[in-house]
């Protein structure tokens, strides 16, 4: 994937992510029901591995890490990515460098390693099981 396309895509994702978090923050604050957009949950009735991530990110913004852990542990990497990636990309664009581009491909290469992939799979399945048990 070309550098420009990747950067635009991730900045777009970050923008959508922030809009989504702000929308849900507003809905929770005004005691309105939050949107249930998970296709898997609507079809099968059971939560998917990443259900509850939005609530977890919202809890993290309030500093309530314990609550975030209870909602979905995946909220932590999601929140970290939302904070770090856009800033990193903007710095890259400003300084005309490509450190994020190199990091992205290194991360892809790292995740494709067999032991990392198996570890991630086991972790995700365990987290999914926990999600179903908690019925987020």
């Amino acid at each position, binding site marked *: 994937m070309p550098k420009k396309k990747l950067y635009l895509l991730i900045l777009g994702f970050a923008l959508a992510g922030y809009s989504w978090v702000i929308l849900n923050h507003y809905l929770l604050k005004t005691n309105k029901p939050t949107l249930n957009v998970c*296709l898997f949950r609507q079809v099968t009735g059971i939560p998917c591995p990443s259900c509850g991530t939005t609530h977890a990110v919202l809890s993290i913004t309030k500093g309530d890490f314990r609550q975030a852990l209870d909602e979905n542990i995946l909220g932590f990497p999601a929140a970290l990515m939302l904070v770090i990636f856009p800033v990193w990309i903007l710095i890259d664009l400003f300084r005309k460098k490509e450190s994020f581009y190199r990091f992205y491909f290194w991360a*892809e290469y790292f995740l494709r390693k067999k032991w990392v992939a198996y570890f991630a799979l086991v972790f995700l399945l365990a987290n999914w099981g926990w999600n179903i048990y908690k019925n987020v």
Partner: protein
Amino acid sequence: MEAQKVDMFLIMNNKFFEPHQMPYIRERLLLLDESKYMMLHTAGFKDPTISLVVSLLGGHFGIDRFLIGDTGLGVAKLLTCGGLGIWTIIDWFLIMGRTKEVNFEKLQQLLM
């Protein structure tokens, strides 16, 4: 490479590539050294139909993106409930084209 061998390769593998890429691939293969012929056959291109089936069944978890090697986008899809379900549906239409694109990139790497 002999024209006959190139044409045979194209007939056998045409489903892995976009039709508009075929003339370019043919041209490049004709210039290719004979010794690389076997390597081309063992390249292991991804089948676009399989990725469509995977996208329909496991697209919500980003498995289709993991399958074709877009690991970063797969993680993004997984963490966002399939891009709030919207990306999942968009990918049902895009994944075959992207698979062919990935195959083309792989072939270009082999030809270099």
